[in-house]
């Protein structure tokens, strides 16, 4: 059976299994509805990058590398540095990932993580000015290596961890000097995300891949201390306002927990 056909069948099976389990108040791995799987963050795993981290939530693994570059600034912000988030769904991470140009899923993932970092205003772009027509650029690359569900939270965690591991390179005569640093990247806040799925009338935090199969609707809420910095409803389905507000409350509390790993 092909991977896609397998996926289709799995969706049906997982849906029935999860619905039955939820009726008994259980999930597929016997966690509580608002529990994360084991979280593990390892910083500084790459020596070639200015910052790096491997984040794992359960079996899901996302590696983040942060590299500095020089760039022409955007015309409307000539004095400000630039940062960008890219996500690569490596074909080795899932039987459903295929080589090729970025899929809408990887673009969405990168952009949601980007919005969290941007809205939280954690990167001081004004400090990244080099000279007229030249600024520093920070490239935040997310490598999805094992898709066990909830890529978004794992990726956001990897990005926050890699950024907090990042050292700012020295710039001499308008050029970056590699391996010579002015100090750590200043990061006043650490944005993380919490992703929920809705199955019937139940809302679950941190879905497994198999739980995602059974999802009616998915919502990601990005937080810093006391504030929401991004949201994205993704995939099919809909939610009530009350359900969104419930997710926001849990996300604010769980954000604290996730930040403790950073």
């Amino acid at each position, binding site marked *: 059976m092909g991977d896609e056909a397998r996926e289709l069948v799995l969706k049906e099976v997982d849906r029935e299994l999860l619905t039955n389990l939820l009726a008994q108040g259980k999930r597929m791995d016997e966690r509580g509805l608002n529990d994360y799987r084991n979280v593990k963050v390892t910083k500084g795993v790459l020596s070639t990058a200015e910052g790096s981290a491997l984040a794992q939530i359960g079996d899901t693994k996302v590696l983040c590398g942060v590299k500095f570059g020089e760039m022409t600034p955007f015309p409307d912000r000539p004095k400000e540095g630039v940062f960008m988030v890219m996500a690569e769904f490596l074909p080795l991470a899932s039987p459903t990932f295929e080589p090729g140009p970025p899929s809408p899923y990887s673009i969405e993932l990168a952009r949601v993580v980007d919005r969290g970092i941007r809205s939280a205003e954690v990167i001081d772009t004004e400090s990244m000015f080099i000279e007229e027509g030249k600024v520093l650029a920070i490239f935040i690359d997310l490598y999805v290596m094992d898709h066990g569900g909830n890529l978004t939270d794992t990726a956001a965690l990897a990005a926050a961890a890699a950024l907090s591991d990042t050292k700012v390179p020295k710039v001499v005569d308008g050029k970056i000097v590699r391996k010579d640093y002015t100090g750590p990247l200043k990061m006043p806040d650490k944005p993380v995300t919490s992703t929920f799925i809705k199955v019937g009338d139940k809302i679950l935090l941190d879905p497994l891949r198999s739980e995602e199969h059974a999802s009616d609707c998915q919502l990601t809420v990005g937080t810093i201390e006391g504030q929401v910095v991004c949201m994205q409803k993704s995939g099919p389905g*809909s939610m009530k306002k009350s359900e969104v507000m419930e997710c926001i409350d849990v996300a604010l509390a769980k954000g604290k927990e996730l930040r403790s790993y950073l």
Partner: protein
Amino acid sequence: METPELFKDGKRLDGRALDELRPIRIIAGVLKEAEGSAFVEWGGNKIICGIYGPRECIPKHDASPYKSLLKCRYTMSPFASLEEHGRTGPNRRSTEISKVIREAFGNVVMSGEFPKTQIDIYVDVLQAEGGTRIAAIAAAAVALANAGIPMKDMISGVAVGKAGGQLAVDLGKAEDNYGESDMPIAFTHRDKEIVFLQMDGKLTPDELSKSIDSAMEASEKVYMLQSEALKKSYEAEGGQELEI
């Protein structure tokens, strides 16, 4: 970067009240070739949407034996913004927006009626002034209905957020660019299910709750305009004039 004063003497930059929508004009059935179409002028946004299908699914191996495949392509014209000339065709931003718009309509389009086919939503932003994705949703909903595609409900939305320290409805370009936060959101009409939700910037839970409420109220006004446009399209024989 100089930030303009977004809120002055109880009024917004363009003189609107905090809960006031920009002027919205919707015309259904403005294109001949497309099976359904709509033009939406929403403040300075000008959006055209055309619907094709249900038609044969291409590539064929993507076809589902259970339902029609809903596809969406949202793009911005190279001349849509006041700043420099943009690039034609899809980019990362438009790819993401296309995806979430398609997913929003997946909630209402009765795709199970047309197995093995696809339905295409083509929506192009001709002129942009903030809030294009919500205006695109308004256009797509009307165009789908105009195409006679069966839907369980209508979708209407608005971008709410915070600008100049105030919670405001239907953010304009300056409010979007310089404001504190932006939350485009869309609901089904009958059940008020949230089928589209994005947010950036900072907001507290209390502000979020208030914003969703005011978005719900404003979306109702958008719905009225959508349904009026559809009624008018039935009265006009052989389609309506496209007045951009």
